[in-house]
């Protein structure tokens, strides 16, 4: 059943108990993301050190199980990653969630890949892809320290 592929236990676990869901006290980069279609919000906080490495990462937000699990897993995996690695992982994830059957990057350990691949069920639900990708786009904005939200 496809629903079980979408709502795997690991997704439900991260969705119900998201890791790193707090406002980081000590951040120097951040960005907010917003899905105007559904009202889901995510705010990513980063502490990037002098070597362009993420020494701390956290997020705040509210949303569906997919968006919370995605942000939770992403923040877990991005700790201690350098800027170039972050970019590679984000690109790899976005390609996987839209079309690629597997993750290509060699940066992650096998168990980490398995964890991330739990989100791959989203592919079959085009309307839900944005739920899975919002945190990742927001992370990219945070790395550039540009806030994606505009209000008029």
């Amino acid at each position, binding site marked *: 059943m496809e*629903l079980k592929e979408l709502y795997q236990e690991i997704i439900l676990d991260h969705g119900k108990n998201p890791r790193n869901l707090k406002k980081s006290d000590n951040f120097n980069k951040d960005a907010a993301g917003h899905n105007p279609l559904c009202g889901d919000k995510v705010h990513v906080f980063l502490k990037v050190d002098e070597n362009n490495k993420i020494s701390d990462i956290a997020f705040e937000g509210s*949303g569906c*199980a997919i968006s919370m699990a995605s942000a939770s897993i992403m923040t877990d995996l991005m700790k201690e990653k350098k800027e170039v690695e972050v970019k590679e992982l984000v690109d790899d994830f976005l390609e996987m969630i839209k079309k690629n059957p597997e993750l290509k990057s060699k940066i992650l350990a096998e168990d980490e890949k398995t964890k991330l691949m739990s989100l791959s069920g989203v592919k079959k639900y085009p309307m839900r892809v944005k739920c899975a990708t919002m945190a990742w786009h927001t992370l990219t904005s945070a790395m550039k320290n540009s806030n994606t939200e505009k209000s008029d």
Partner: protein
Amino acid sequence: MNIDNIKKQFPIFDNKVQNNDLVYLDSANSSQKPKVVVDRIYDFYTKEFSNVGRSVHYLAVAATNLYENTRVMVQKYINASDPNEIVFTKGATEAINLVANTFGQKFLQEGDEILLTELEHHSNYVPWHYLRRSKGIKIKFAEFNSDGEVTLESIEKNITPKTKMIAITHLSNVTGAILPIKEITKLAHSKNIPILVDGCQGAPHLKLDMQDIDCDFYAISCHKMYGPTGLGVLYAKKKWLDALPPYQGGGGMIREVKKEGITFGDLPNKYEAGTMATAQVIAFGESIKFLNKIGIENIEAHESQLTQYGEEVLRKNNSVKLIGSPKNKGSVLSFTLDGIHAHDIATILDEDGVAIRAGHHCCQILHDKLGLSATARASLGVYNTKDDIDKLNESLNKCKKIFDR
């Protein structure tokens, strides 16, 4: 009223959707279309098509007559006093933009106030927001109470000498509250304030009588009334359509065009610039006939009964929390489910062929006040049955099963 026979008139239910019988609970978003409406579009394009109001050839004259016939049908359906009080637009959104734009241009100045409610759909807030920027007007929001209703008192206490327009929904697309628009209109007029009613949710479900309600403007969305998309109706009292400037300029709306200046055409052409959604207008005539054949009172009674049944069933389900409990309620059931986000609910329900809406339903002000980023909403139409409600409830229980693993 035999719902099975009515449902048979909607071809969408003939086919399976992803191998399921369709349980369509998203009519507040857009209703399904009866075959007569779909066929009318096909017939018009294949046998009768011409542009309206311009050429003198046979087809043009016939098409113009069909188009104008629908205007008269709409006039009668909502009991307006004059067919020229019916303006076709591309949707209810454009109808409200038309009023905000032209009324703002002519009558509003810095510091003037527009009174809305916290229940409003974005389409009855954003057009007024433009005037906040361009003219420096203020926008006030009459509050809804714990039942999700906006009362006459809540409107009254927000009226000031600066209030220049009251713009309110007839029926909330989230809480289902039916506002006492006749009483609010009376109150507004006692203070010389015009009133616009956003009738998107009212028109498909309630009997309308413009002369009885006495509102100045009433916006209608045709695709929610078993009609085609791309079409709306603005009802406006003739005195306003005479007094307000045109909205858009173009062909069809002018009297005389010279290098030195332009004079504008008579009603209703003044507000219908360019080639209109001709096929949709003509097909909408079939929607009115469809509604008249069943009788809006019968539709109202059927939907009201079904809404009550829905409330009973969902109240018995301990995981479900209904949003709003207005005394006078339309056929909208918004809810949350313990620990499960509305979007996850909608995806799981979809797997069973149950189509609902999830999100803020274009009402972020309302959701912010309730502290919710999203709700799930099941909304009913003439084709729905108790069976649909039962299937909704079964699928909601499945959501719990999946999430409680």
